[in-house]
C-alpha cells in the first residue's frame, strides 16, 4: 500500500490533474474514485450510459499512473480459458510427438513398471509447467511486475458464472490454477470494471467494488472535454455545439447523444470549417449525433429552434 497521504484533498486534486494531463477531464467524484481505488485497493465498478467515457477513464488512469493497461473485453460465453489462462495444447502435443523417440529410449532403459511410472510422473510435471501456460489478460495483470491497470470492459455482457469466477480475483487479487496452485499478485493492479447495465450485476460483485456512476456531463464540463479532445474548435462554436447537444438530451430519443458523439461532431464541424452553427449544417451532420432514423426525423423538424437557443445560450453563458 502507498504511504498514507497527509492531505487527501490535495491528493484527489493531483489525481484529477494527472487524468487531465492524460486527456481525461474528471469530475471530483471520478478523481475521488480513482484515489480511493488505489488507497483501499478496491476495484472500481463504473456504470453509466454508453459513450460517457467509462473505458476512457481506464486508459487515462493507466497513462497517469504510468502502468500498462491490460484490457479484457467481456462477451457472452467468455470463460476461464479465454480470460485467465490456457494450456498450450498444441505445443504440448507437438513436444510429445517430437520427443517420442527420446522418451521411448529413456523408458526402455528404466527397469520395471514402477521406475517407468516414476519417470512418467516427472514428465507430467514438465508438461504442465509455466512454459506451456498461455497467460490471458487476468493472469497477465497479476503477473505484471510493477502492477497494472486492468480494464474489465462491459462485465454485464459476460455470463453469471464468469462473474462469480471474478470474485476471487477482485477480493484477493489472486487466482487458483489447479495444476500450479494459487498465483497472487506481486503488486495489486488497479481494476476498473465497466457496465452498461444490460443486466443487473450480482450483489456479491457489487459489494466488492466501489461503485461510480458517470452520467452526462454538465455544459461547462462538456465544453472542457471538447476543448481538450478537439483543440481546434473555436470558443464560440464549442459553446454552441455543447448547448445544442445538451438540448437534445432533454428530448425523448431512442439513443441520447453521448460525450463521444459530441466529440465526433466537433471533429466533423472542424473538418467542414464551420465557425458557427446554422440549421443547414446541423441537418447535414445530424447523422453523427443520432443513430436512429426516427430520432433524426424528430430532431430535424426542431433543428432551427434548437440552433437559435444554442446561440443564445453561448452568448449568455
Amino acid at each position: 500500500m502507498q504511504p498514507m497521504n497527509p492531505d487527501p484533498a490535495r491528493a484527489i486534486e493531483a489525481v484529477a490533474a494527472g487524468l487531465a494531463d492524460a486527456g481525461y477531464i474528471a469530475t471530483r467524484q471520478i478523481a475521488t474514485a480513482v484515489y480511493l481505488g488505489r488507497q483501499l485497493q478496491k476495484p472500481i465498478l463504473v456504470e453509466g450510459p454508453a459513450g460517457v467515457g467509462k473505458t476512457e477513464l481506464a486508459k487515462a488512469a493507466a497513462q497517469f499512473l504510468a502502468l500498462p493497461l491490460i484490457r479484457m473485453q467481456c462477451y457472452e460465453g467468455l470463460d476461464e480459458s479465454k480470460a485467465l489462462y490456457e494450456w498450450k495444447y498444441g505445443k504440448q502435443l507437438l513436444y510429445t510427438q517430437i520427443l517420442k523417440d527420446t522418451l521411448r529410449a529413456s523408458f526402455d532403459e528404466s527397469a520395471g513398471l514402477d521406475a517407468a511410472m516414476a519417470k512418467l510422473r516427472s514428465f507430467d510435471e514438465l508438461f504442465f509447467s509455466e512454459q506451456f501456460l498461455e497467460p490471458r489478460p487476468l493472469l497477465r495483470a497479476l503477473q505484471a511486475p510493477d502492477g497494472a491497470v486492468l480494464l474489465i470492459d462491459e462485465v454485464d455482457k459476460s455470463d453469471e458464472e464468469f462473474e462469480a469466477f471474478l470474485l476471487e480475483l477482485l477480493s484477493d487479487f489472486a487466482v487458483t490454477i489447479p495444476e500450479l496452485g494459487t498465483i497472487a499478485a506481486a503488486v495489486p493492479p488497479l481494476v476498473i470494471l465497466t457496465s452498461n447495465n444490460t443486466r443487473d450485476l450480482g450483489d456479491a460483485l457489487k459489494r466488492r467494488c466501489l461503485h461510480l456512476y458517470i452520467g452526462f456531463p454538465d455544459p461547462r464540463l462538456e465544453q472542457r472535454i471538447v476543448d481538450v479532445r478537439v483543440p481546434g474548435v473555436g470558443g464560440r462554436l464549442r459553446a454552441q455545439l455543447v448547448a445544442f447537444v445538451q438540448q437534445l438530451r432533454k428530448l425523448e430519443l431512442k439513443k441520447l447523444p453521448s460525450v463521444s458523439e459530441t466529440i465526433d461532431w466537433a471533429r466533423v464541424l472542424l473538418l467542414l470549417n464551420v465557425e458557427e452553427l446554422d440549421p443547414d449544417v446541423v441537418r447535414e451532420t445530424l447523422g453523427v449525433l443520432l443513430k436512429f432514423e426516427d430520432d433524426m426525423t424528430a430532431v430535424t423538424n426542431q433543428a432551427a429552434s434548437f440552433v437559435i437557443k444554442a446561440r443564445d445560450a453561448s452568448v449568455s453563458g
Partner: protein
Amino acid sequence: MELPLLGFLQTARRAGIRISAAESLDAFRAVETIGLTDRAALKDVLGLVVAKSREEKALFEECFELYFTRAQLGDADAAAAARADADGSPARNASLADMLRENDRAGLTLALEGAGRRIGAAGIRFRVQANMYVQQIMQEMGLAELTREIERLRAAGDDAAADELEHARDRLRAGVRDYVERYLALAAPAENVWRDENLKTVPLWRLDRNDVERMRAIVRALAKKLATRYGRDRRHRRHGHLDVRRTLRRNTAYDGVPFSTAWKKRKLEKPRVVALCDVSGSVAPVAQFLLLFLHSLADALSDVRSFAFSSHLIDVSDVLARETVESAIAEIVKQIGFRSSDYGRSLADFKDGFMDEVDRRTSVIVMGDARSNYSNPRAEIVKALYARAKLVIWLNPESRPSWGTGDSEMLRYLPYCHIARECANVRDLERTMAELLTRGT
C-alpha cells in the same frame, strides 16, 4: 467519528440501501483515508462505497442531505457540543421548565435527541405515527412535570409566567415535530418498498391512477428479470461435450493425434410466442396492463408476435416494436379498444390470416375473459391451435368460479388449453410467465 457514521449507515439501511457488514467496514476505512473535515469529499466517498446502483445513489443523496443537515433547536456549535455530550451520558439535571425559561437551546437539543433515542424515534415508518411519536418524545422530555409547573404558576396567580411557559412549550412541540418529520422523510423510501410488494397482489382492475406509474415500473422490472433468467437458461444449454467423431475426422491429417478438437454444440431452440390480447370493454381496466406486459415481453424475448382483438383481430407487433409503451397502448386502444368482444370472429381472423405463424415450437398466450356476447365461440379454432402449438396458455382476469357464467365461454375453451390460469394481479402474471419461460419453451 464512529457514531455519526454508524448512525448514518443505519439510517441509509432503513431507507432501503443494502449495506453489508463488509461495506460498513469499507466505509470506515474510506472515511479514515479522507477525513471528516470536507463535507463534499465525505459525500463523494460514502457515495462510492455505500450506494451500488443508480436508484441507491438517489436514495443515498437524499439520506446524506437529511442526515448530515439535521436542523437543530439551537445554533450549530451549541448543538454539536450537545451531541458530543449526548453520546456520553445524558446528564439531565435541569428540569424542562428551567431549560425553557432560560432558553437553553443546547440543553433542549440534548434532551430531545436523548428522548428520541430512548423511545426509538428512528423506527418511525408511516405518517400516521407522527403524532404518537411527538407525544411520546414530549412525555419522555418531562411534559407531565412541565404541565404541573404551569398549573402551579396559574394557581399562584402568575399568569404572565404561565403564558410564557405555555408558548415555550408550543415552540418546543413544533421543534419535536420537525425532528420526527425528518426521521419520517428518511423512512419514506422504505415505505415505497412495502407498497410495491402490496401492489403486486392488488387486483389489476382496482388500481387507482396513482398506482399506475409504480405498477408500470414493477411490470418493466419483472419483464427484465424474466429476460435475464431466461437468457441464462438458454446459455446453459449451449455447453457441450467433446465430439469424438468430428475430432477424429478432423485430425486424420495428423495421424489421428488430436491437435484440434471439436465440441458438440446443442442446438438452441428459440422460443416463439404468439400472444393474443383482449382489449374489449369488459376487460378495459386490465387491458392496459396486459398490453404493457405484452410490450415488455416483446422487449425481453426475441420472437414475439402480438395481436389485439375485441370485435375483430389486428396484428400489433409492429406498433409495439415501433412505439414507446404509452403511445403504443394509446394507438392500439384507439384502433380497436373498448368495443364489445367477439371471440369467434377474432379467432376466425387469426385462423385466416396468421395460422401459419403457429407451429410445434410456438407457445400461444391468450389474455382475456372469454366473454363473447353470446356469439359463436368457435372453440374448434382453439382446438386446432392446441393440436398445432407447443403450448396454449390462457390467462383470464376473472376468478375461476365465474368462468362459464353468463356469456363466458371459458369452459368451452378450457379443454384445449395446456395451462389456464386466473390472472388477476401482477404476482399471478409473474408466476405464469416464469413457468412459461423455464418449462414451456
